[in-house]
């Protein structure tokens, strides 16, 4: 098992290296660079830069060098110093920017993930056990609609409904007065209130998906002979349900955790923009728009790493959860 994991991790390295270069290249692909977008914002505010000023800025930031050279410098710094470069937009080291947003990003992502699994698994079990009941149709209907509604529109609509019903559109993750306030019970409550819409919007599509997977798996498992065996042993229905079909159905579900990790990080970008969430997605998006390439590059690199690792984690989880594979490794 350990050998397998090590082999997989070693394989991750070239993949991530390759991705990082492609990422870096793609960021540079659109015309213009950070200096041009910077000067454009400045000129919009009546503050015009001349060509000379722009050229100077380019050379200061090293943007006048060829792409591969910039890439090599960047990678060298990462490898040697753990320095991911500098964010032009924020005037901060990339790591500092990432750190600034990481806390809330993790909160949103983890809460969303927990929401997904906590909601999807019981509903999946319920709809499978009560197949074709009113409850089954209700939940399946909701989850299908959740899947079918584009996130950004759902976010806007929920925000507007929240405004018309409660007088508060619940923008952002905190009310104005709590943004810079130290942590307190009230702030936590405020955060929870503001999390409702994002969690629903970000989580709904995947929740719907999970419900369907869980339901399908459960239906398969419920018809397996081992359920009959368990019943013949005199076990109670609940016990049977939890021990046999649920446990087996959870396998593929649990193994999706690795995958969903990165998709929650990136999948929430559009929603986060609409809902004004201070998390990484919009930061990355703006970095891409503003050609803030080290920030964008590092972030994308991180995402790629997360995806690759997520796959790895999923594979390992799957192996670990499946006694067949597990015992094979033990055997070796």
């Amino acid at each position, binding site marked *: 098992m350990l050998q397998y994991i090590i082999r997989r991790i070693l*394989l991750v390295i070239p*993949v991530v290296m*390759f*991705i990082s270069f*492609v*990422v870096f290249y*793609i*960021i540079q*692909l*659109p*015309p213009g660079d950070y200096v041009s977008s910077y000067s454009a914002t400045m000129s919009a505010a009546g503050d015009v830069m001349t060509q000379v000023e722009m050229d100077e800025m380019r050379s200061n930031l090293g943007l006048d060098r060829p792409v591969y050279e910039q890439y090599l410098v960047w990678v060298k710094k990462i490898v040697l110093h753990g320095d991911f470069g500098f964010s032009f937009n924020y005037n901060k080291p990339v790591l500092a920017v990432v750190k600034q947003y990481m806390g809330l990003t993790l909160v949103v992502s983890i809460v969303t993930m927990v929401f997904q699994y906590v909601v999807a698994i019981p509903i999946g079990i319920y709809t499978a056990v009560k197949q074709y009941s009113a409850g089954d149709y209700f939940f399946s209907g909701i989850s*299908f*609609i959740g*899947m*079918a*509604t*584009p*996130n*950004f*529109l759902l976010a*806007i*609509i929920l925000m*507007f409904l929240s405004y018309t019903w409660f007088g508060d559109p619940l923008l952002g993750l905190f009310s104005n007065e709590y943004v810079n306030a130290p942590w307190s019970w009230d702030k936590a409550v405020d955060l929870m209130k503001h999390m409702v819409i994002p969690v629903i919007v970000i989580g709904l599509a995947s929740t719907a998906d999970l419900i369907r997977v869980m339901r399908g798996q459960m239906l398969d498992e419920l*018809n397996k002979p081992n359920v009959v065996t368990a019943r013949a042993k005199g076990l109670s229905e609940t016990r049977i349900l939890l021990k046999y079909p649920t446990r087996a159905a959870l396998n593929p579900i649990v193994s999706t955790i690795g995958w969903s990790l*990165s998709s929650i990080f*990136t999948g929430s*970008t*559009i929603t986060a923009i*609409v809902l004004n969430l201070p998390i990484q997605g919009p930061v*990355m*998006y703006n970095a*891409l*728009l503003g050609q803030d390439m080290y920030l*964008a590059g590092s972030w*994308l690199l991180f*995402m*790629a790493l997360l*995806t*690759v690792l997520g*796959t790895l984690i999923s594979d390992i989880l799957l192996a670990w959860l499946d006694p067949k594979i597990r015992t094979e490794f033990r055997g070796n």
Partner: protein
Amino acid sequence: MRTIPAFKRQKPETLRPKKNTDANYSSQWRLMYLRFKKHKLAQISLFILALLYTVALFAQFIAPYGLQSYDSKYVNVPPMGFKFIDADGKFHIKPFVYELKSTRDPETMRKIFVPDTEKRHSLQFFVKGEEYKFLGLIKTSTHLIGVKEPGRVFLLGTDGMGRDLFSRIILGSQISLSIPLVGVGISLVIGLIIGGISGYFGGWLDSIIQRVIEIIRSFPTLPLWMALSAAIPPRIPVVTMYLYIVIIFAFIGWTDLARVVRGKFISLKNEDYVIAAKIAGVGSTKIIIKHLLPGFISYLVVATTLAIPGMILAETAMSFLGLGIRSPATSWGVLLQEAQKIENVALYPWKLFPLGIVILTVLTYNFLGDGLRDAADPYKK
């Protein structure tokens, strides 16, 4: 009670009761069809989809107005219902609409529309209107329904430029319903070839292909979209733009299908009948086409069906970010992107109608996919 007649020997076949026994002897496709027939929701979905595609095919004919029928007089008109009874209480057998008088609220500058009960326009079939090419071939100006000029009918209201939303939804379906089909089609071909190679031959080729798929999959799609659409040159017509988008989608989408294909190839290639064919010296191509493909073509149909809704949604997301198709060319994504302005949600909520159509389409595709999956699975009851 009764006498026993002499034993009669008969060929048993002639008297076999005809009860469902055909199920036991049917081909795979026939079985699928029989099982699919049981899935009511999937059948309804198939029907709705067929309807949507028919409408898309004849969109120019069905839509009362064109994509560029701007009219400052009718900006943000709420949906109009047909009427049968006029202001005097008189009943009319033909449904009709009143002509609208438009004014502005002097305070808020909002357009206000008052029906002019003097001017009644009956809804008619085959009305002359904007000229278009029927099926892209025959020039005509006949539209399925509408009212005579200067009357106007806006079933679902109008947008901020005075265009009929109903027409735009219908015309937009041409792009929105075909992008996913073509996109999935391309992904399918790529996925089939690459997944097939990977699964059938295995070994180092498989490893390399799997790594490549892994790389593509771990690629965040957002910057990819942004970069690719920024790379699209300015002077291209809508059709070309459309093709580019399809290619972007296909590029991202094929990996999923390749995985399905690969998985099936691996599991099928060790089946006895395939091994038997190999031992018998049948060539690889023949094995693939004759023995492997039929084994999972039904799964492919399902996977394809279920991949389509994702593409429909992806198209709307691209439009939200201002990438992809732009008005006056219209897709549902374009309509939703316009609808998502808070102003529209607050003041002109009918602009959210396209959302209903998107949901309907995505739902029907999902139900159809589910139905097909159930039908394709020979082990399902």
